[in-house]
């Protein structure tokens, strides 16, 4: 059973992390798994880029971290969205939607006759 994998576009990881955290606080491993699962396994987040991204977002103040107990009862670093991060997500999301619409319009269904 091999699934086709899609490479993450540069800069989209931040957006995906912010979106994942809208559902509530979560730790790094769960965030990665959630992105993978929700994208129907099309996207796999590299651990080596997930954690640096989380810390980058934390340094920017878009997310905040605290140590909590996980479902299994272990200490885990949980991330949650800050007010600033929520605002940032809204603007990033509309930017992304505008971008995908624009690319979609150009790539659109091929129609040599014109419409």
């Amino acid at each position, binding site marked *: 059973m091999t699934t086709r994998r899609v490479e993450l576009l540069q800069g989209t990881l931040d957006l995906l992390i912010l979106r994942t955290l809208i559902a509530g606080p979560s730790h790094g*491993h769960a965030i990665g798994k959630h992105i993978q699962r929700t994208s129907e396994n099309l996207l796999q987040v*590299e*651990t*080596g880029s997930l*954690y640096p991204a989380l810390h980058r977002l934390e340094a920017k103040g878009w997310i905040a971290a605290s140590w909590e107990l996980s479902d299994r009862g*272990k200490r885990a*670093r949980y991330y949650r969205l800050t007010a600033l991060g929520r605002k940032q997500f809204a603007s990033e999301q509309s930017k992304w939607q505008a971008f995908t619409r624009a690319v979609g319009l150009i790539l659109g269904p091929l129609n040599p006759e014109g419409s």
Partner: protein
Amino acid sequence: VTWFFRKLKWLAQRRAKESELQDELQFHLDEEAADLQSRGLSSTEARSGAHRDLGNLALVQEDMRAAWTWVWMEQFAQDVRYALRAMAASKGFHGFAIFSLALGIGANTAIFSIVDAVLLRQLPYRQPEQLAWIWATRTDRDKAFFSIPNFIDTRDRQRAFAQLAAFSNWGANLTGSGEPERLSGVRLSAGALKMLGVRAAAGRTLFEKDDKPTNALVVMFSYGFWQRRFGGNTKAIGQAHPQRRAVHCGGRVATGFYDSQCGDRSSHSIAVRG
């Protein structure tokens, strides 16, 4: 700006944060291993699978740290350390290089100090742009000193300048109160200080009648000398010198006249006679 303080805070708690990075990644490895184990892998297989997924642990930590620190700053510190090590390795060569640099910088500074004082900075006198230093000419040389009669003739007959004043180097021994001292200064014609716009901070400058050879010599001290030798005592001003009646302490020059020209060489004084 808040991100700046967040970074500073992280730097301040660096050691604690370092172990947090480790703990966070360890938790990830444990979770991943548990995940894989629940899919039927043995515990050793699961653990190595988790490690494989994470990749280079040190590299990931480095990238996480990079989010918090100023990479350029750390790299600069590294470069400095490397440079110091390289210097320590060949002390002679680097010592010589540093010595050459120091010499070059020092020479440039010295030259510029002279250029600044001589060419760039204006003389601290009234209307410095109108000041000129003229020499007498003789058949055997272009730059000769004026004799006093020659000066008087030139002064009275020239029309190029508004005023003319004479000066020459002068030295004298100060005896009487306290240690004898060799003074060096300049002799001036009486009009010179007025022409330059120099006023006495205490006492008086020179009058026209001071130029008369029959009148007593008048000495003006620089401010620094007055402070050093007489402790700034106003009684020293206007006093006839006890040993040579001819010398008369006339006053002292305002700071900024002689002092700024020659540095505060406190032994400088100014004597006058016609």
